[in-house]
């Protein structure tokens, strides 16, 4: 066990003047301002202390000191500490040392800021475009303050994303942008030899809606939760809670205990319905539609309850800065207990059926295999990590809401494959039911909303994590003037997990691709948060729009 003081001493002793300042506004958060030249070394030092890379946050600080700021956030899971390394580079030469060679999961974050802020990372192994559309012009960096939120620059001509070179002797199979395996647009170019997968390239972010920029420029603190929950079609409460907690933390403000309990209940309701949804989808992906239909039938009851409780079938519109909008009445409590009882009973049946079905084992065991060490290296999160022997769960490691009072197990298995994720998710659903029951039992009385006493001071940093059904969600907030955040960075669990998918696919059969991608329960809308991208049907070609149109017309006529 490390204490925050020990972390400080270690950094100070080893790096002396490279560590300029510590800030510690909240017991478990450590913000360290460090010298740009030591970013890579100090990041590795934190990893060496048992840290796990979370996300990087880049921000525009030009107006104040002509720099671009960069923050690498880490979690020390055993010690309940978040460490954020803050650094900056002058805007006329925004070059940083890339940490990706040591921490592969930082690859996307760094590419994101190459696209959005114009930063440069020396030593980055794959400095390709990640977020911006292919026809977005060079030199326009949407996250800089000078770029208006609704800018529509003229598109660049004759550009197309260049897929990675296919390995020798391999065929490219395009999966996406629209494909039944992917329930949202994304494009995987899968390189196969026969039916064995030898590699894959990913081009996503096709539904990047620019939410962060929108919220930083147009909305206010109190409005953002309603946008935050719409980041995801499933984990609404997760994002709203995580955002609200970040604002509350920046303000140094505590909400009522009852509201914290209700948030806990909402988060667990979400876990129950999300895991049932996933179970159905997983069944469908291996061609077992009976599991699909049955899991969704069982799930339906909790959706109806969600509508009764929040006014929305989905768990939207419930969580706001300062508490929750609706209370759980005694009648609703009884109804929820009844629903949980039914779900638990039916889930036991489904669980038994799945465990006893040898053909499901055949399709999931040994599939999507990566080792525990690789999982750690790639900083994977959630059930994907827990199925591979990595014992992390934000609810237990960094308690928030009312989780400090809840007693629950964190299921971890070490089968390191897709089967593990099935088991972990089913067991977690039982745990979620357990947590809801405890929360309902022990919920204290009190108000559901607490008003803020004073304005939030600008330029306060806050980082919060919430365990979503898919894994941990991280929100980083820098408070701003004008009653809105200066910078708000969202990292959904699919963001790290998707980066680990190519490793899981390697050497498996093409027929396993749907369930492997499915096993991380990908949520592309969460991962893509900012611009529409247009790429061709996936074949490596350079058709112009006009040519494509001509071809499709000719094809249509030929059929007459």
């Amino acid at each position, binding site marked *: 066990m490390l204490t925050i003081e020990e972390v400080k001493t270690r950094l100070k002793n080893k790096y002396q003047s490279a560590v300029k300042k510590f800030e510690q506004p909240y017991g478990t958060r450590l913000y360290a301002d460090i010298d740009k030249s030591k970013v890579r070394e100090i990041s590795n030092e934190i990893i060496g202390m048992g840290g796990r890379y979370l996300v990087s946050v880049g921000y525009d600080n030009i107006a104040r000191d002509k720099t671009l700021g960069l923050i690498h956030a880490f979690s020390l899971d055993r010690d309940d500490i978040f460490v954020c390394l803050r650094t900056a580079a002058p805007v006329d030469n925004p070059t940083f040392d890339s940490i990706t060679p040591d921490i592969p999961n930082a690859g996307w974050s760094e590419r994101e800021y190459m696209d959005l802020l114009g930063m440069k990372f020396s030593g980055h192994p794959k400095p390709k475009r990640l977020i911006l559309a292919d026809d977005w012009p060079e030199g326009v960096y949407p996250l800089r303050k000078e770029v208006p939120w609704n800018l529509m620059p003229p598109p660049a001509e004759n550009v197309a994303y260049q897929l990675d070179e296919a390995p020798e002797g391999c*065929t*490219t*199979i*395009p999966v996406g942008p629209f*494909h*039944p*395996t992917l329930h949202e647009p994304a494009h995987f170019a899968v390189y196969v030899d026969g*039916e064995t997968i030898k590699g894959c390239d990913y081009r996503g972010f096709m539904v990047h809606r620019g939410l962060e920029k929108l919220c930083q420029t147009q909305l206010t603190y109190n409005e953002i939760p309603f946008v935050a929950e719409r980041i995801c079609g499933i984990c609404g409460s997760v994002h709203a809670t995580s955002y609200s907690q970040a604002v509350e933390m920046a303000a140094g403000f505590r909400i009522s205990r009852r509201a914290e309990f209700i948030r806990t209940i909402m988060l667990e309701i979400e876990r129950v319905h999300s895991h049932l949804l996933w179970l159905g989808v997983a*069944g*469908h*992906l*291996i*061609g*077992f*539609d*009976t*599991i*699909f*239909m*049955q899991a969704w*039938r069982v799930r339906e009851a909790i959706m109806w309850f969600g509508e009764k409780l929040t006014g929305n079938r989905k768990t939207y519109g419930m969580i706001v800065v300062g508490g929750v909008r609706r209370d759980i009445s005694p009648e609703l409590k009884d109804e929820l207990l009844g629903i949980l009882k039914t779900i638990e009973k039916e889930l036991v049946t489904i669980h038994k059926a799945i465990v006893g*079905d040898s*053909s*499901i084992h*055949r*399709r999931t065991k040994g599939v999507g295999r990566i080792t525990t060490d690789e999982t750690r290296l790639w900083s994977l999160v959630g059930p994907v990590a827990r199925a591979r022997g990595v014992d992390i769960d934000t609810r237990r490691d960094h308690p928030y809401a009312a989780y400090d009072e809840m007693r629950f197990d964190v299921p971890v298995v070490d089968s390191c494959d897709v089967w593990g994720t099935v088991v972990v998710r089913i067991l977690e659903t039982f745990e979620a039911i357990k947590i809801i029951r405890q929360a309902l039992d022990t919920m204290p009385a009190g108000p559901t909303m607490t008003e803020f006493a004073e304005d939030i001071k600008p330029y306060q940093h806050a980082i919060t994590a919430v365990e979503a059904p898919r894994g941990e969600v991280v929100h980083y907030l820098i408070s701003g003037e004008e009653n809105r955040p200066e910078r708000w960075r969202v990292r959904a669990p699919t963001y790290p997990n998707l980066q680990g998918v190519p490793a899981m696919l390697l050497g498996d*059969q*093409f*027929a*396993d*691709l*749907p369930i492997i991608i499915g096993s991380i329960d990908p949520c592309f809308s969460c991962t893509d948060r900012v611009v529409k991208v247009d790429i061709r049907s996936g074949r490596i070609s350079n058709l112009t729009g006009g040519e494509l149109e001509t071809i499709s017309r000719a*094809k*249509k006529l*030929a*059929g*007459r």
Partner: protein
Amino acid sequence: MDILYIAVNILVFLLLAPLFEGVIRKITARVQSRQGPPVIQPYYDLLKLLGKQNLSAGTVVFKFAPMLALASILGVIVFLPLGYQANYLTKYADVITIIYLLTLGGVSVLLGALSSRNTYAAIGSSREMITMIMVEPVLAMTFILGAVKVKSMGIAASISSVTAGGYGASVIVMMAAYLMALQAFVGRQPFDIAEAEVEILEGPFIEYSGPNYALFKYYLILKQMFYAALFVIVFIPPFKTGWYGADVLIQMAFVLVVFIGIALMGATHPRLRIDQAQKFYAVLIAASLAAVGLSVYGI
């Protein structure tokens, strides 16, 4: 009269095959706690597809493949001694003809798929080809089992004499092998590998739509009914009432039972991977060979 039986064969198959497909869909739905479409939905589907615009990938092969497939399966059906009555054509062909015509249907699917030059169709075709090569022997051995007993390759003779002399070990083994291969014959779970919607989006048929697709769909459901009917004709001992119509009805009742089995099997299994299926098929081939071997020794 003999010639009339041919018409009966074709009519019974054309009219009932979509109904049996509807039964499968209904049962699958019930297993999944769904209401399910009406049993006659497949007729609507076919009609709707027939009324749509025909889109073509541009090659002649692409256009003719569905017709060839449908024609070849109808060609198989006419030879079938439905209602235990050999018809006018039955004596002109032998079991080799049936196997050839069935293969021709499969080959048409491959030709159509490959001529579309779609990547998914290509994967689907290679899977379809593997399936064809590996399950066809089970069908061939079934016929040969009968042929060995009567020393004739004639359709009526070989088909109706598999169970002649009772249910010996060879017949039981063959029956089991046939039943297990049935899901692969009809392309249903766990062996719907060639079409696998979530991986390769209906594989060979991805580029087909409208009337062309309707012909393929009809081909598939006729083929499915053929394999179910063949099981009934070969392995269920004749219940001859003396009236042709009644005999046909009894056989159709058995076919319905086989279809219920197919539906339940399909609804309770996930799809296997092609490499896993291959191992399974290999076992089936070995079993059917063993059955023929046993029958040579009269077991």
